[in-house]
């Protein structure tokens, strides 16, 4: 596990040497900022719940853009061969890349801390849901990063990786919106599979082990599948 750190450092740094990182962060902040504040004063409530309500759907688009290059680019340029002939294990590669993407998502969230701070000046803000919200956002970001990493390992084309990533994340966010159309025995399963409701619970400040377990298992599944695919390529 010692080689996770150099891989993490390299991947995390390479986000910031290319303009992509800044573009993604800027778009993320503009979109969340606009949607959040355009209705904020209408509600007349000192809460940032609406900001967190937006996050799953925005993450479903933004995170696959962050993760799409992680493996695809290496496959395309041929550096994948360099990487795997270094004394590193698949596990270290997967973890290093995953942690770099998750750290980038966390870095992307840092500027949004301004929202609750501003709201706290305007009214009496309950900090519990805010802390829960950010914890949930990290968990959601981590699991979508794992999904995005999986998508990236499937193809050498970054755009294809992006589309696959968006499709899976989007499905995870929207799956509990179709519950009314499905038989009741299936509804329970689909309800559990949806990322939205789990995230909502955490962002209300309710820390339920089921919700946390959901995100952890989604992350684990994504990483494990990536590991399998990399192994299979040999």
């Amino acid at each position, binding site marked *: 596990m010692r080689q996770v750190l150099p891989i993490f450092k390299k991947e995390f740094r390479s986000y910031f*040497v290319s303009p992509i990182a800044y573009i993604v962060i800027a778009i993320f902040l503009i979109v969340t900022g606009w949607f959040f504040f355009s209705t904020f004063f209408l509600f007349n409530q000192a809460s940032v719940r609406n900001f967190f309500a937006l996050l799953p759907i925005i993450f479903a688009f933004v995170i696959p853009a962050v993760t799409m290059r992680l493996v695809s680019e290496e496959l395309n340029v041929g550096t994948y061969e*360099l990487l795997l*002939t*270094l004394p590193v294990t698949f596990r270290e590669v997967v973890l290093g890349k995953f942690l770099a993407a998750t750290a980038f998502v966390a870095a992307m969230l840092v500027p949004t801390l301004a929202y609750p701070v501003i709201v706290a000046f305007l009214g009496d803000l309950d900090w519990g849901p805010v802390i829960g919200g950010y914890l949930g956002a990290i968990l959601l970001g981590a699991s979508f990063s794992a999904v995005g990493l999986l998508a990236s390992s499937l193809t050498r084309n970054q755009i294809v990786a992006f589309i696959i990533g968006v499709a899976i994340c989007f499905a995870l966010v929207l799956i509990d919106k179709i519950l009314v159309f499905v038989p009741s025995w299936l509804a329970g399963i689909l309800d559990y599979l949806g990322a939205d409701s789990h995230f909502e619970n955490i962002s209300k400040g309710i820390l339920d082990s089921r919700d946390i377990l959901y995100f952890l298992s989604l992350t684990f599944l994504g990483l494990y599948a990536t590991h399998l695919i990399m192994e299979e390529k*040999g």
Partner: protein
Amino acid sequence: MIHVEKLTKNFGDLCAVDHISFDIPKGQIVGLLGPNGAGKTTTLRMLTGFLRPSSGTIRVKDLSIDEHSLEIRKLLGYLPESAPLYHDMLVYDYLQYVADIREVEKKNRLSRVREMADLCGIREVMHKPVSELSKGYKQRVGLAHAMMKDPEILVFDEPTSGLDPNQIIEIREIIRKIGKEKTVILSTHILSEAEATCDRVVIIHQGKIAADGTMESLKESASGESSIHLALREADFNSVQEALGSLRGITRISPEEGDGGILRVKLSCRAGEDLRPQVYQRIKESQWVLIEFYQETQSLEDIFQKLTLEN
């Protein structure tokens, strides 16, 4: 040092490498030679642990690649074909990253990176992004990457492909310099390269080993016959045949294309015999006017063609 036995790799129906076996002792520079698609790259990729063999064994210093891939990769430095590199990194950052991941001690890292930069001649591009480098510099950065942790075995896949003649000579010099202390395996389809750099050549054709040995032994064993070429004036083929046909060691006399009263003749000679003095003696005795006279021994190209054009 390296022991390969019955190594095989199938891609679906295609058998890229077919039961090849060889041993490489310490300190040898071995060239894998073969036409495009012969299985050189696949063999090297299996040696470096990038591809898993379909069957067969690879042992490096008594470590099996199935169980000790990681340990073997620590002993190996590898430069893949066309030296792929991360485009967005600076050369300096890239080498630092390699030093980090190869576990070069932190306090030695900078001096090691400098040492590599000097050895490979990339000092002046250290602060350029990789994407701006020329092909030759990329290749050298790849060499620096491969040698970072001072590995015992170096594997180069077509190290000089796509370089200009000056760069080729430079890279060959670097390889020969390294090869003095280390075991080097390189693949190439350029014969003169193998001749110039390698102690030993393994010719691979259609996934099988077609020949294996030193340059000299290959030349000898290829049942090489030499031939003498003559260009004569004031001579006709029949009289030449009559005068030279009786010489022992000449297996065949055949006419070649000539023009303007010049007769060109090819004398095929048995291997290992130099018939030039006798032939010259006969010519002196005749009335012919000698214009050209040279001997041709079988070159590596001929051996290579012979071995790889069958089927």
